[in-house]
């Protein structure tokens, strides 16, 4: 074999493996999309069909205009998910930005312990926090409110955001703020004018990550909400199964619409996101 042939063979094998992996990952998604356009009877035909014979939008109509009063409509879930994820992202960034900066730049008593506590949160499964959080939210009167959910989401979004942003700040030489302070900034001014602009990609990475975490969250949303009007999409999805019925069509239609924003979001900023993650990891 010549060098060229060997290279070609190598490429073929690599691409074959990549395609296989992509198919493996995409299959459930494609099946979900396909099922959402099938009539209820076609969903269970054997052998299964990839392309629906009589494509229908009935499931989509059903989730947007539900007949049963008890179930909320998809647009409400969608709005709740979007609003909560968005506000979670904003709040997480507002808190994580100064927190991670402080962890990166200042020395204060208990700093190591505090940082350990932040990271240590990841050592426990989220479910451990559910009952204490529930009691807390009850006392605060935040059950079944947006505020309650958004604050609860800080428990798992903040540690990662702080860790990620701290990596960015660590990579920025401290002389930059010093130069800024000599050039006429206050300490806070130097942070805002000189440091924050440099962490734009870090904030994007942390923000996207937070958004997706909040968007996908199920357990807290399930327990801390009561009425249908407060449900997020993941909770809404669960209600397609009741004791007696399972509405596969509605579930698949909702799930398909649920995944679209995340996919689009990721497609737009994918390159940015990867660059951001590696930049934070590799210090200059």
């Amino acid at each position: 074999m010549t060098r060229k042939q060997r290279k070609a063979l190598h490429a073929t094998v690599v691409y074959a493996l990549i395609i296989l992996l992509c198919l493996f990952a995409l299959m459930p998604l494609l099946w979900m999309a396909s099922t959402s356009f099938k009539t209820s009877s076609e969903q269970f035909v054997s052998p299964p069909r990839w392309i629906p014979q009589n494509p229908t939008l009935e499931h989509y109509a059903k989730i947007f205009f539900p007949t049963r009063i008890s179930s909320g409509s998809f647009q409400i879930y969608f709005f709740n998910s979007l609003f909560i994820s968005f506000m979670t992202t904003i709040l997480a960034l507002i808190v994580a930005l100064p927190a991670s900066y402080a962890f990166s730049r200042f020395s204060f008593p208990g700093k190591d312990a505090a940082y350990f506590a932040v990271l240590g949160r990841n050592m426990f499964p989220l479910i451990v926090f559910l009952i204490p959080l529930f009691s807390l939210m009850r006392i605060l009167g935040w059950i079944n409110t947006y505020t309650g959910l958004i604050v609860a989401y800080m428990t798992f979004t903040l540690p990662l955001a702080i860790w990620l942003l701290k990596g960015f700040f660590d990579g920025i030489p401290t002389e930059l703020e010093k130069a800024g302070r000599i050039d006429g900034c206050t300490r806070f001014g130097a942070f805002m004018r000189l440091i924050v602009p440099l962490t734009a990609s870090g904030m994007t990475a942390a923000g996207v990550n937070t958004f997706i975490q909040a968007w996908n969250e199920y357990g807290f949303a399930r327990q801390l909400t009561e009425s249908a009007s407060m449900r997020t999409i993941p909770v809404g999805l669960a209600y397609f199964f009741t004791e007696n019925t399972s509405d596969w069509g509605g579930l698949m239609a909702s799930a398909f619409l649920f995944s679209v924003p995340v996919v689009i979001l990721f497609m737009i900023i994918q390159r940015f996101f990867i660059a951001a993650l590696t930049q934070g990891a590799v210090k200059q």
Partner: protein
Amino acid sequence: MAEVSLKNIVKLYGDVRAVDGVSLDIHDKEFVTLVGPSGCGKTTTLHMIAGLIELDGGDILIGKNNVSELDPKDRDIAMVFQNYALYPHKSVRDNLMFPLRMRKIDKTTAEQRVNRASKILSIEQLLDRKPKQLSGGQQQRVALGRAIVRDPAVFLMDEPLSNLDAKLRVQMRTEIKHLQQELQATMIYVTHDQIEAMTMSDRIAVMDKGKVQQFGSPDELFNRPNNVFVAGFIGNPPMNLIPAQIVSEGGSKKLRMGQITYAPQTGRVHDLMNKAAGEKVIVGLRNTAIQMVAPGTAGSILTEVYTVEPTGDVTYVQTNIGDKMCTISSPDVAYRGRLGDPLSLRIDENRLYLFDDLSGKAIL
């Protein structure tokens, strides 16, 4: 421009006395260098003057004002950092504009100043680039530019040349010195390179262990070192420092250095020996104060060649004097002695220094 006074300033990091009571009076328009080995507190001192580090004791005056409690931005200083600290997301022009903008200087004046500074430093063609697109030497110029547009009372520089290659360093050394004189600026410059300090400064403060060991002109430090540390630090090659003992033989005092017992001829050295507190001293001799002479010359001492190091204009000879490896300059540049060749050496007693072995202080 202004004078700067440090009055017994102190900085502690836990048990480390990073800056341990430094006092300096720096004149208006003076070029003063802080020099010393790594960790001696140079950067800390400079940052204290800048206001980036708070004082644990003492006072700092710039002009007539006590600035000890002021923020860096209110001290009217400019600083150049070792890694330049250019703002990476701003163009060169915006880097230069930034300090002016922060001080609310009107736009036309600001632009004039930026243009003038970039002309002085020949960076006019670089104004629209980002710092990343510049070479190390160019970044260095921009950093200098950002300092000079402000026209501050004092310039502070922390090893601004150490990231440049040897050739560029020598060139920038001249340029900074020239710039300081052209701008009539008060400049406080930090380096660990004693040659940089010697060539650029009006006065040098030699620091060690958080303390100023000596503050004086390059000539003073070279010719009249206060103590062993300064003697060994200033000068290249460093001064030969030979441990010795003052002994009395046949009614007169002599210097015993290892196997060699040396009988000083001049009254000066006898005076110094008489002033010594104990019998243990350190003899200091620059490489040029030890001369190679013809064998058998009266008063000469005998040693052997260890190595010969030709450098082009000077040839250095290494030899053991009293168990201490010493460097001397050969009068004949073409001298190429070999290991073990006998050497006759005469000591220039007018340029012999004695230091107290315990305190390290010069005996004068």
